[in-house]
């Protein structure tokens, strides 16, 4: 006597990315905190000292936020025009910022008024940074020059005029006080040495450079510009290592995760992509509402801060390990769980003789009803609220099973207004889903056959039938359009193939599915 074979629920391939360690790690953030700034957020810089406040440069202000505050703990507003590139010194005491009015200002983090003003640039200053000895400032400007300034005297030390276009980004070495790197709109990235007072390495990025980033070891340099992110090996004299093209708009900002294993790039295409730095494959992707101008990552990846063109600052905090553990602990303490596992976790000792109890096969409720040939009840169960909305594939599988048994008509018949409208609702909701269409079309036809005599008696059902009719009409139009597109594509494929002696048509489908799946992929 064979046992009852339960209804087979078709497993549909899951769309979207696969779950990996990276997805789990990068998904483990809370819902973002959104803060409206006064203008587009152009720069975000984290303070190197705890509590790791961060400076947000937006329009004519620089706000400093604490790690968990939603209000700025401090703001610098003494700018005549748009401020750029607010950066902390390595001790977190001083902050430097450029401005549209070509003046570079140095602030004490606790003060309000600028300590020093560095004047000398003739155009907007987009790049400011402290050198690693803390006594000098690097600036880069739209007047094609970059300069080194002495902080105590507020005097200009050197001017470098090697770039031939705007200098928009740059970084100083954390290990050597004389080395710094600038990226310019003249497509080049230059490594300067203050001791020889000229550039020592020039790398051609190929596009206006928007952002540069040094690895903690400072052997590798990452530059972003246009749609490309390029990695250069500085120890080999600026040899290009890898070129990544994963964005479809200009990449604006770069960041490195705290352990140096992951590289993040933000772009105007509203995505932040996470790369593995060993094989430079994209391992995760964040979506944002608007084009991203700046990106910051807190130490230990405790939060991701993103500034966008629509002047929104989005802060995502990492979920606390303790929080999640506590929730799990609460679940374990539930009494029903204890009852459920009672005796199940007993491990037999060495000399114990095991008497196996026949495992009682668990059947779903609809399967139990199908086993007793209660077809209407089985369909009702499968149309229950939870299954209908959360697992429509179960409902469809039960309908298919009933159809296979030849009893679908019996199951569909004899429903009142509420039952029928529920059924129609489900069909309307899922009819155009390519996975369910073949089954539901049969069911819809049967419903029309069975209930055609009662059309006009219930306004609810009539309205739904009209919706169904409309839906089918639209779907047919849609399919027709798609077939046209497919025809055009076929002609293109055929003409692009080289002429052969024997005419044969080839194409390799991208997936395991058939040609039909190709057709259906268009609207899924």
């Amino acid at each position, binding site marked *: *006597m*064979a*046992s*009852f*074979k*339960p209804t*087979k629920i*078709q497993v549909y391939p899951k769309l979207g990315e*696969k779950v*990996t360690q990276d997805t789990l790690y990068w998904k483990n953030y809370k819902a973002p905190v959104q803060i409206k700034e006064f203008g587009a957020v152009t720069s975000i810089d984290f303070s190197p000292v705890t509590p790791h406040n961060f400076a947000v440069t937006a329009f004519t202000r620089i706000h400093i936020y604490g790690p968990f505050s939603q209000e700025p703990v401090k703001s610098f507003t003494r700018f005549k025009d748009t401020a750029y590139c607010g950066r902390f010194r390595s001790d977190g005491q001083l902050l430097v910022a450029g401005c549209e009015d070509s003046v570079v200002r140095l602030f004490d983090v606790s003060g309000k008024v600028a300590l020093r003003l560095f004047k000398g640039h003739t155009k907007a200053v987009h790049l400011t940074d402290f050198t690693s000895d803390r006594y000098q400032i690097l600036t880069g400007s739209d007047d094609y020059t970059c300069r080194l300034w002495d902080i105590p005297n507020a005097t200009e030390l050197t001017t470098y005029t090697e770039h031939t276009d705007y200098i928009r980004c740059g970084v100083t070495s954390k290990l050597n006080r004389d080395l710094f790197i600038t990226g310019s709109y003249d497509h080049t990235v230059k490594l300067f040495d203050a001791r020889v007072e000229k550039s020592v390495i020039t790398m051609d990025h190929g596009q206006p450079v928007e952002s540069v980033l040094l690895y903690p070891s400072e052997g590798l340099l990452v530059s972003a510009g246009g749609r490309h992110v390029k990695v250069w090996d500085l120890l080999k004299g600026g040899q290009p290592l890898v070129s990544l093209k994963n964005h479809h708009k200009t990449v604006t900002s770069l960041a490195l995760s705290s352990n140096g294993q992951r590289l993040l790039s933000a772009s105007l295409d509203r995505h932040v992509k996470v790369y593995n730095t060993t094989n430079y494959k994209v391992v995760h992707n964040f979506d944002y509402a608007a084009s991203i101008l700046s990106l910051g990552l807190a130490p230990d990846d405790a939060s991701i801060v993103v500034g966008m063109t629509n002047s929104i600052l989005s802060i995502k905090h990492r979920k606390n390990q303790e929080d999640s553990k506590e929730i799990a602990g609460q679940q374990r303490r539930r009494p029903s769980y204890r009852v459920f596992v009672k005796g199940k976790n007993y491990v037999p000792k060495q000399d114990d003789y095991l008497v196996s109890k026949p495992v009682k096969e668990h059947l779903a409720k609809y399967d139990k009803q*199908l086993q007793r040939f209660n077809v209407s009840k089985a369909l009702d169960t499968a149309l229950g609220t939870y299954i209908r909305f959360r697992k429509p594939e179960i409902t469809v599988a039960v309908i298919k*099973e009933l*159809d*296979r*048994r*030849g009893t679908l008509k019996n199951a569909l018949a004899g429903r009142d207004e509420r039952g029928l409208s529920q059924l129609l609702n489900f069909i309307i909701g899922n009819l155009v889903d390519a996975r369910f269409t*073949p089954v539901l079309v*049969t069911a819809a036809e049967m419903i029309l056959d069975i209930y055609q005599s009662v059309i006009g008696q219930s306004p609810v059902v009539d309205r739904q039938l009209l919706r169904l009719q409309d839906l089918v009409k639209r779907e047919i139009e849609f399919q027709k359009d798609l077939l046209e597109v497919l025809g055009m594509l076929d002609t293109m494929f055929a003409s692009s193939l080289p002429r*052969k002696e*024997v*005419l*044969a*048509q*080839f*194409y*390799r*489908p991208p*997936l*395991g*599915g*058939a*040609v*039909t799946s190709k057709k259906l992929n268009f609207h899924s």
Partner: protein
Amino acid sequence: MVEHGDIRVVHCGGSKINFRDPVITHDSRFLLCASGEAVKVFSTSTEECIHELRGHTGLVTGVLLRPSNHLQVYSSSLDGTLRLWDFTDGILIKTCVIGYPIYSFYASDKHENVIFIVASMPKRFQLVAVHLPQSGDQMVEAQELSAVLSGVNPNPAAIAFGRGGEFIASVNDLQLEVYFFKKQKSYRFFLKEDNKKGGWNTFTCVACHPKDDCIATGHEDGKIRLWRNFNHKKEYTYSTLHWHHSTVSSLCFTPEGTNLLSGGVESVLVQWRYNQESERDFLPRLGGAITHITVSPDGSLFCTSHSDNKITIIQSCVKVSAVIQGLVKGDSIRTDLMMDPRSKALVLNGKPGHLQFYSLQRDKLLYNLDIVQQEYIHESGLQQFEVVKAAFDASGSWLATVEERHQKAAELELNLKLWAFDEQTQSFVLNTTISAPHDAQITAMCFCQPTDSQTTLLVSTSKDGHFKAWQLAAPAHTEGPSWLCDFVSAYHGLVPECCSFSADGSLLAVVFQEVVTVWSPSTWELLTTLSQPPGAVSDLCFGRLSCSKYLLGTTASNLLCWNLLTCSLEWTTSMDVRRLVADPLSENMAAFCYQSGSTDLFVFKPSEPRPLFSHKAVCSGKVTQAVFAPREEMLESCEESSQWLNRSQLYFLTQQMDLMTFTTKAEEDRLLASSKQLVIDDSVAMTPFYLLLGKHRQQQQEHQDSDSSLWAERTALPQTSASMKELLQTPAHVLPSTSYLCSMFVQSLLISVSDARSAHAEEEMESEKEEEDSEEEMESSRSKPELAAAAATESDTPALTKAQARELRRVRKLDHSWLAGLLDS
């Protein structure tokens, strides 16, 4: 062309065992059933076939235990004979020639030496009483025939004896006829043809209550009627039971009459309580539709035959204890005949939705592989998933199956499943399911058989005009490897009919109607096309080994052979080849050609102009399925005509779904010799009679052990054991009747009761009871008497006690009397 006398076409196993209702012996240890031209004796506990009672020359149509001797069995056949067998030894005792083909037969206790047979007299079937002549000859002819009823149904379920033979009930169409033997009178009851509710009242089967005046009849609409008071023409009554939704095919009362069993298409065994019909027990999902139900004489075992060639043995309606499964042959075999490369089993469609693996060597079903994995609904006229194609790869580690379900209105449902062989469970495990692999039906499927490369390739061709290549993709990090589509191609919108890989896997040939296209599987480049109009190529085969440069194809009128090196036609002959098979172990090919109503076989090498072997009229009708099965050990035949059978054996299915094969004379001789040896071994097996004797001897042995002072016992032993030995070695059919012998033995068992040591005897009785409980114990102690006997011969003969002397005398008397009996016969 020469006919070869020493190669013969023979039926090969897999005959029906569900043709007629099986019989369970009185001790419930054996089950007898008609199977083709033989009667098979199965053990009810181990499911093994113990004997095959061969001798009939026509289909066996019934098996019945002889009412007067429970160790003998009658069988009837369409060859017009009744045969009496001793089923424990498998010996034919008597043959009774009737002269008419017998369709079914009946016997009862009340009518000694009378057998009732259903034979086809001119125009209609008649129930005829046959008086068996009482002569000692092996072959007798029955002369005394007297018709009892005429116009009966040849179906054996349509006639039944009531109340131990007082009356006989027969149903036919819409009529129930009851004939009383004492009154010599028959009553007929009619039902209306069709009642208003759409039921069909046609009778299908009948069963009579063993103690009560009650007849149960089954009907086509699923009703069961219980008839009472039928010994009056007018005052009869009936009550109706209804549970089955379609035809009741079998009914049976338990021996005590407390329960009624019924079964039908639903494959549910229903047990109705007699007189409390509202209480029912069910045993669902037994397999195919139930065709027969029988109950063992003691009521402890039920047994159901199923339409899928299966007999299920059930312990009193609660538990299935054994399943005897024959080769399942449906109306059509949709998959080809195939060989499983691992188990060397024949693989074909079995139960609905299953593939069966059938061992040809042991003539036994190994297992069924559930392909569809869905609940089978037992309802006629329902379209369900069917396995239509299957293919193995060369090493047997992958199996591809296609199942389809075609409904009139809806679109075709098609699933391609790939199964990986699991070493641990030694069976196939589902790896990938591809739903809707093609838009239309799949016409052919084959695996690439490369010897060295790691990648496995599957090619499927479909009526949608495409052929697709499927490849095992690298394992993803979460799950194991799965199959993906690698390549799709078409050729001028023609429909591909079949495909084939060359032996080394370097070439793929796909037939598009008249055109054979040859592809390279590594680059998917079309290499060449071959065509020989007119007529579409229907079958394709690459040559093997030394003939690997040849490609053979068949059209409706020609057999074509292309040379792949020159891409030209090598030779062609005009014949209507229906099936072309290549031997995987040699260059040989077998072609089955259909010619004027029968099929001819040609075995040839593609490189040689003359066929190796030809056989005209292998069978009538077309042969569409055939396969070469590799032999376990090679034959060493040196005759030229039979050399092609050395490495592998050719099996084929005829239009009547009979599995046939070719054997040589030498092989048959060897088989015969081995089977003879088997019979001798079996005669030492445990028979009930042997058990009785063994127990007796053992009892004596224990007696000795318990009381060591009684040395005298031992003297009696040699003699008894000698007589018993003689008894056991004499063939059963020359022995006097068992009832006669039995009474003597019962007497001999009773001696110790009269003895002075009666208390001691009681102890023995108890121990005997214990022995009955466990058979194992008995078997383990069986060797003891022999040891004792050996010891006894050495010892001197001390004085006999009184009782011993009496026993000895009795034994001597016994010995004498049975010898006398032997002389009489």
